């Protein structure tokens, strides 16, 4: 080995270690599961959630003893669960329980709601369900946003929530819904809930922004709640006619793959979603669901 190669290798290794330490949420350093995605259908939200995570190797593959885990559902709206505007509380609670069983020291749950946070937390049923499961629910504290360098194509830096950035593991638990601009809100768009500042302005370049932000927060695991999905008047709904019951959970490690599959739940192609297209073009994940290894289970 030449000296220059050695130096280059050392630099790269330390860089990747540095990224690994800085961004401990990146599962890419762990053992890759046998499947890209697990798609489980069944009547019990709690059971299909557990089954999906088991299909990817169980929660112990993702969460280690003593980890501080952030579980990030969508608690954006003052709606009760049947309106499919927030993540299903049973799904969130199931994940919290699995994390604790896997030895997590703490499981934190929060979201920067759009409607009044108190009403969102209570009416969504999530605060109650998470507390019962042993997790810690907290409201967003505006003091805890810190500017994070993103260096994306549109977002160069943005205030992000420190409790999430400092967690050992992050599990994204979005709900699949219609959205007027991005067409669907799935996993990548769920990160808007940890963005501080005037986040509404990212709608000006929504697809690029979502990719930028998603690459800054790489989750350990994504569990997409499609127990009930909202097919119109999203993202907050309000009309039960727009709600469709799919009784489905999609879980995966790569957020682009999960969102790509999410599109198919609505009869769309993954390429219909601008942010999935851009993410795939940049090599952040696969878009072609036909080429993914998918474990489908029905219980």
């Amino acid at each position, binding site marked *: 080995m030449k000296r220059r190669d050695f130096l280059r290798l050392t630099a790269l290794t330390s860089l990747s270690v540095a990224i690994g330490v800085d961004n401990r949420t990146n599962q890419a350093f762990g053992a890759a599961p046998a499947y890209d995605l697990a798609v489980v259908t069944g009547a019990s939200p709690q059971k299909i959630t557990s089954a999906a995570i088991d299909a990817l190797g169980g929660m112990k593959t993702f969460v280690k003893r003593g980890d501080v885990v952030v579980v990030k559902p969508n608690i954006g709206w003052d709606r009760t669960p049947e309106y499919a505007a927030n993540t299903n509380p049973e799904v969130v609670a199931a994940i919290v329980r699995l994390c604790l069983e896997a030895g997590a020291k703490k499981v934190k749950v929060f979201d920067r709601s759009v409607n009044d946070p108190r009403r969102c937390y209570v009416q969504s049923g999530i605060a109650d369900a998470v507390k019962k499961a042993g997790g810690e629910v907290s409201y967003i504290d505006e003091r805890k946003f810190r500017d994070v360098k993103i260096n994306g194509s549109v977002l160069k830096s943005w205030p992000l929530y420190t409790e999430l950035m400092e967690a050992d593991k992050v599990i994204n638990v979005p709900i699949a819904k219609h959205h007027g601009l991005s067409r669907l809100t799935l996993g990548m768009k769920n990160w808007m809930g940890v963005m501080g500042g005037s986040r509404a302005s990212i*709608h000006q370049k929504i697809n690029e922004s979502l990719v930028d932000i998603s690459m800054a927060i790489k989750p350990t695991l994504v569990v997409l709640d499609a127990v009930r999905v909202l097919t119109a*008047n999203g993202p907050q709904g309000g009309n039960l006619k727009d709600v469709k019951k799919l009784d489905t959970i999609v879980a995966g490690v790569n957020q682009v793959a999960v969102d790509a599959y999410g599109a198919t739940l609505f009869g769309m192609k993954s390429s219909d979603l601008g942010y999935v297209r851009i993410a795939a073009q940049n090599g952040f994940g696969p878009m072609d669901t036909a080429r993914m290894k998918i474990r489908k289970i029905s219980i």
Partner: protein
Amino acid sequence: MNTPRRIRIAVQAAFLLLFVFLFLQTESKGNDDLGYPVKLFLDFDPLILITTLLSAHAVAAGFLLSIIVIAVTFIFGRVFCGWICPLGTLNNMVGSLRRSKPRISPRWNTAKYLLLVFLIVSSLFGMQLAGVFDPLSLLIRSFSLAVYPALSSATNAGLDLLYGAPNQSVNAFGEAVAAAAKKLYLPFQQPFYEQGWFIGILFLGVLGLNLLEQRFWCRYLCPLGALLGIFSRWSFLKRSVSEGCNECGACNRVCVGNATPHEKDNWKPTECLYCRNCDDVCPKNAVSFGFGSKQPTGSLNIGRRRVVTAALSGAVAVPLIRTVPLAKQGFHNPALVRPPGSLDEREFLQRCVKCGECMKVCITGGLQPTLMEAGLEGIWSPVLVPKIGYCEYRCTLCGQVCPTGAIKRLTIQEKEKVSIGTAMIDKGRCLPYAHSTPCIVCEEVCPTGKKAIWLEEVTVRDADGNVITVKQPHIDLKTCIGCGICETKCPVIDRPAIYVTSIGETRSKTNKLLL
């Protein structure tokens, strides 16, 4: 200290604490109900009962509780003022900082009766001004809009210092203090109110007058005190002085109500707060309170001419205040977006007592006190300012805490159908219209089941000449309820490109837009 005085101080403390507790509970915890009867003190206020009855010819059921206060006053005198009223207790506390001889002629006692006459006569002609001077309204309004926001702001400034310190253990300490303060007294979010400083200065003025003379407000100004004073004339519980009195005058120095206790046969039950200071201080132990005393008492002499003048002023004030453009048929103030469930403007003003409960409880802090938007008679009544906070779609708290029914209590289902105004788009500022830039935030946050904002996909040219597609928002007038969340969340933050005005409000028969 003798027992009655000790008991009185304990009772005062208990009621003040109850008042503060209920005040702190006037805040959402995420459920549809608050869980506590937060407007309880107002329910017991006979001044509001009587003036609302006269102005609106109707009264909210809760106010029947105030009959208890009237009954108690007939039996025990003005014990409400001396033992219960939280503003009276605060006046007591501030007044105890300085004990000076009365400097104001006791004849000024009559001022409060004249104010009462003024308020009652104007309410008879349909104008509810009592809330401006009612002690409970005044206290809740001052706490809600001035004292509490200032306290919260000061606390947060301190916490920010601890958070910002370049030392981790100081930061952790800050976090612990913040958690404790949040549990104990901090509001969920920092409130901001128009005129907070002004209402605060008025309140400090009321408290500051105690330095001139203890319980200045209660002696000379309080219209509720005057009302109870009148009832107190016939109270059964009377003060009597035994032969042991050597007229040393000690009692007069501690009297907080200008009741002339040192003039043996001229003790004035209308002014006495039954605080028992005179009983406590008497070196001869000659003072006692009991039922059925035959000792002559001082009478209430306001002066017939003065009463007539006050009554006439009350009558004249009504047309004087009302002759403003707002009273003109079909004239509506676009900024006067009232809370959901508000009665039609005239009826609303006949009931609203400006207590500030609705503004305190408003979940987004969007309900603000008016200055002159609703005319002088509407001063400090609630108006929604969406730039500060919108009306939360499924929240019904303002109607729950309104003591007089000026804001009706609505169920969530009823509220979803009530429009408080209509959103309009400023196409000169809206990003997809004026600047060929994508944005759908107003549509995204629109809460009606079928969205009141719909998007039209159009192709436009951007600044570089490229043809791009944007979605331009439109308002569906039939569906829009004027909640204002679109205005609150509009990314054009300094002057939102979508805004709500009062037109289309359900409560008005004339402020209509649609056929």
